[in-house]
């Protein structure tokens, strides 16, 4: 346990702690641009240099380990001068349009420039003059703003293993690109947006659809019906100074109404519906003895990943649409018919923690209602901007209830937003429907939490049911490679697998508030489990509105109408497309 001294403050740390971490523990903030707590140090920016007594050169605090007796200084006169100069070098190559930039106020470069009192630039300014790539449904890539920290490449290549982007070029011309002058939209990018939430500046950001939504709301002829994903309700508050994990769903309903949205539903309703459909699908496979595994299908980032890298496992993916898409097709049929609003006048809006949902809504097959099932998807961040623009003091709202028909939800639905939530929800229902008895313990702790791969074994009518939960696409790749190999050898390692593209589950999605570290995601997830434990009914099959839907409209899970509106198919994709 080395003892070190940083800026005159003594501190003892665990062996292997870096100077950066030690300083943080001692309450000293060493500036960084490329380091993120979730990513191994890259050493690219040079902003974290510190001075160590007895060493002739400065060292990078992010990679140098604290050693016994080190006397460290983080901001000598010399260091301050050097860092200010280094910042100027970066700023001189960065576009000067903070005021129009989507990350204005939330940008790490801006924060450092402010911290270091950069008042003028001695260097001549220049920009790359590159076209902005808006080809991907969920993500915009603006390489004029890229500072070259390398976080997105590390995330896409190693944490997600989508490998859609890599460094391209050399020296000051280096950018991040899918290929030579090609765009992300036509490549293997799955729109998971993890690159977006780790980007320190506005080089990668969500493709905004707020303009369309304002237009729809402000058009008196159109009826806007919105749905809100589970993960949004424990995160949106962060945009207004509230704590991560704090449940703000009633405020969200209220804010949406104040914005002028006509009908407010809840994606948690269709999460319960998904469980009914998928549970039935699973139980059918159980009776038929396969094919196993059945893999969940609510994460569109995962779906595109699966279509691209594991096309031979497509028949293992549940044919159920995601809750977003189920809701979308019901809004333009069931809701439209029930309330007598012509579907062409309905604008189906969804509020999601996810950038890939924009891709999902745009998938050509997602029009089973006869119209585009989901017209627009707004990320949590976009909604926050609209709320601010409308002058609403979100944290002071009293909150209202949502509109009935497609809103009621169980505890099982709300935990969809956390990794393991879909699995737990599915088992709560599948077990009871199959055995006629409820699970002994409704809280399936084995599939909860931030561990990257979680497995559990449940005895269902004497048969052993093996389930697995993974989050983060690198873990999905590892698990599926294993499953595929086992399949070739004629073995079935798991019967049911939940895959979420983002670590932590949807609470860590590409559309969530930018402070999106794993620590933060865990807090949000816990907020969902807390909501679950306090709800009047906790199993999807107990949802009265779901029961009503089947009774009056769909007939039964897996029935013809269900198949038409609530199920989909997938497409094999080329892993080498550009």
């Amino acid at each position: 346990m080395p003892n070190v001294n940083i800026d005159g403050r003594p501190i003892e740390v665990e062996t292997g702690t870096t100077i950066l971490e030690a300083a943080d523990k001692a309450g000293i903030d060493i500036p960084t641009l490329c380091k993120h707590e979730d990513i191994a140090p890259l050493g690219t920016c040079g902003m974290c240099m510190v001075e160590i007594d007895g060493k002739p050169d400065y060292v990078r605090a992010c990679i140098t380990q604290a050693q016994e007796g080190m006397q460290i200084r983080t901001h000598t006169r010399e260091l301050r001068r050097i860092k200010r100069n280094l910042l100027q070098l970066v700023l001189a190559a960065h576009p000067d349009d903070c005021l129009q930039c989507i990350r204005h106020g939330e940008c790490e470069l801006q924060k450092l420039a402010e911290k270091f009192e950069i008042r003028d630039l001695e260097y001549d300014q220049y920009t790359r003059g590159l076209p902005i790539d808006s080809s991907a449904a969920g993500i915009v890539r603006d390489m004029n703003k890229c500072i070259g920290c390398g976080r997105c490449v590390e995330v896409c290549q190693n944490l997600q293993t989508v490998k859609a982007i890599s460094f391209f070029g050399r020296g000051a011309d280096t950018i991040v690109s899918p290929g030579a002058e090609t765009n992300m939209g036509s490549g293997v990018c799955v729109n998971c947006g993890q690159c977006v939430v780790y980007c320190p500046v506005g080089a990668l950001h969500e493709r905004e659809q707020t303009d369309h939504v304002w237009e729809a709301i402000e058009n008196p002829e159109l009826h806007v019906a919105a749905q809100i994903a589970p993960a949004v309700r424990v995160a949106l508050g962060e945009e207004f100074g509230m704590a991560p994990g704090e449940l703000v769903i009633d405020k969200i309903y209220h804010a949406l109404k104040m914005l002028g949205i006509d009908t407010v539903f809840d994606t948690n309703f269709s999460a319960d519906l998904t469980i009914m459909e998928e549970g039935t699908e699973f139980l059918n496979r159980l009776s038929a003895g396969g094919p196993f595994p059945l893999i969940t299908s609510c994460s569109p980032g995962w779906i595109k990943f699966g279509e691209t890298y594991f096309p031979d496992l497509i028949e293992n993916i549940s044919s159920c649409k995601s809750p977003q898409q189920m809701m979308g097709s019901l809004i333009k049929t069931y809701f439209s018919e029930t309330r007598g609003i012509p579907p062409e006048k309905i604008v189906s809006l969804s509020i999601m923690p996810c950038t890939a949902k924009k891709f999902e809504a745009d998938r050509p097959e997602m029009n089973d209602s006869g119209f585009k099932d989901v017209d627009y998807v707004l990320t949590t961040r976009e909604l926050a901007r609209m709320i601010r623009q409308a002058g609403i003091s979100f944290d002071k709202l009293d909150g209202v209830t949502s509109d009935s028909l497609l809103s009621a939800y169980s505890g099982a639905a709300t935990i969809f937003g956390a990794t393991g939530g879909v699995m737990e929800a599915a088992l709560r229902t599948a077990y009871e429907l199959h055995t006629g008895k409820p699970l002994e313990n409704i809280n399936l702790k084995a599939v909860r939490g931030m561990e990257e791969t979680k497995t559990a074994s449940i005895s269902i009518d004497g048969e052993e049911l093996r389930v697995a939960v993974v989050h983060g696409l690198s873990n999905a790749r590892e698990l599926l490679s294993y499953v595929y190999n086992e399949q070739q050898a004629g073995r079935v390692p798991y019967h049911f697998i939940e895959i979420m593209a983002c670590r932590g589950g949807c609470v860590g999605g590409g559309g969530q508030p930018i402070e999106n570290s794993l620590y933060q995601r865990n807090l949000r997830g816990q907020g969902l489990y807390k909501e679950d434990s306090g709800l009047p009914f906790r199993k999807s099959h107990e949802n009265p509105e779901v029961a009503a839907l089947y009774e009056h409209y769909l007939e039964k899970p897996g029935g013809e109408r269900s198949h038409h509106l609530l199920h989909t198919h997938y497409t094999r994709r080329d892993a080498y497309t550009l």
Partner: protein
Amino acid sequence: MKQNKVSLTHYAMKKQDIEAYIGLGGYHGLKAALDMDRSEVVKEVQDSKLRGRGGAGFPTGKKWAGVPPSEETYVVCNADEGEPGTFKDRYIMENTPFLLLEGMTIAGYAVGAKKGFIYIRGEYPTIAETLKKALEAARSQNMLGNNILGSGFSFDIEIKRGGGSYVVGDETALLSSLMGKRGFPWMKPPYPTEKGLWDRPTVVNNVETLSYVPLILAHGAAAFSKIGVEGSTGPKLYSVSGHVNSPGVYEFPMGVSVKDLIEAAGGVQGQLKAVQIGGTAGPIYDAESLSMQLDYDAMQTAGGTLGSGAVVVMNSKTNMAGVLDVSMRFFAEESCGQCFPCRYGTRQLNYMAQRIAAGTGRQSYLQLMQDTGEVMQATSFCPFGQSVSTPLNSLLQHFGDEVKGFIQQQDYVKEVI
């Protein structure tokens, strides 16, 4: 010079003939080494005090001694010679390739490697072919491959071509490139001898360094170390170019004076104005440099570095603002772009030097360039960025008035590319 057998030029041949090489005394070193324990071979090289000839001057024996025992160790020859002004490795590979192969094989034996790579820059395609043929010849004589000379030691060498990047001459950037990646340097520690290629112990040595190894083993450490000066032993191949009458590779004992070297190269064409020593990251001196001694320690004491031993001579017709421009442009083009100080710093330095040379510079550039160099020295990830301030500061120190003149008079109008 040619009578002294501890000499690379002694083995120079127009045509690569392994039998002629053996006739001149070639492969005696390997035979001697195979008769010794590996640790004895390492000790011999340590005792010779041979220092790396690529530029860093790290004691070769010390590097080898630091290699832990391992099932899979590699020897890599850095033949990426990209340092401007340097062409000694080309000379060795074109004229005495067997010295290199023999040296690598001895190195492999000493550190317990079974496989070696020669990473040769992409711009030397014909030399790569020459080396391939030399490898075949060595294998046919059982000097390479399985069970070398019946000793039980097996070692083979593969040629790896580069693709056009100066920075991969840096040890860890080279290993990145060899593994098929972009040529980004790594964080050290861990050092390549501990964790190099595919995380295995790897020794990276320059062409010239490896080429001396057979001579050390054949003639003994003492014969090697009595050549040159204390702290920089053995002969050295100096690359002399620019405004001299006979530019070329010259072999001298370490520590020859700049004056003697230039004389050997036929003397200056015209009047001596400036000398850059050590390569593009070396200082640019004025005529005072004539008395300097070309060895590691003397050059360091003089505030510079011997580097690759390149000496570029500039006469009075040389436009120093143009030299600054060419210098800074080199760094900007070759920066790998991994770290901020270098990727942004080299570009700004390039812009400023370019504008000065084109007559559109500003007075403020001079101080700003030096400040930038200082920031890069303090914060760059690897020696490439850290060293830009050396040629920059020395040029401004010795020729600052001329450069200022460009800015003030703005009478230098020549199309700058």
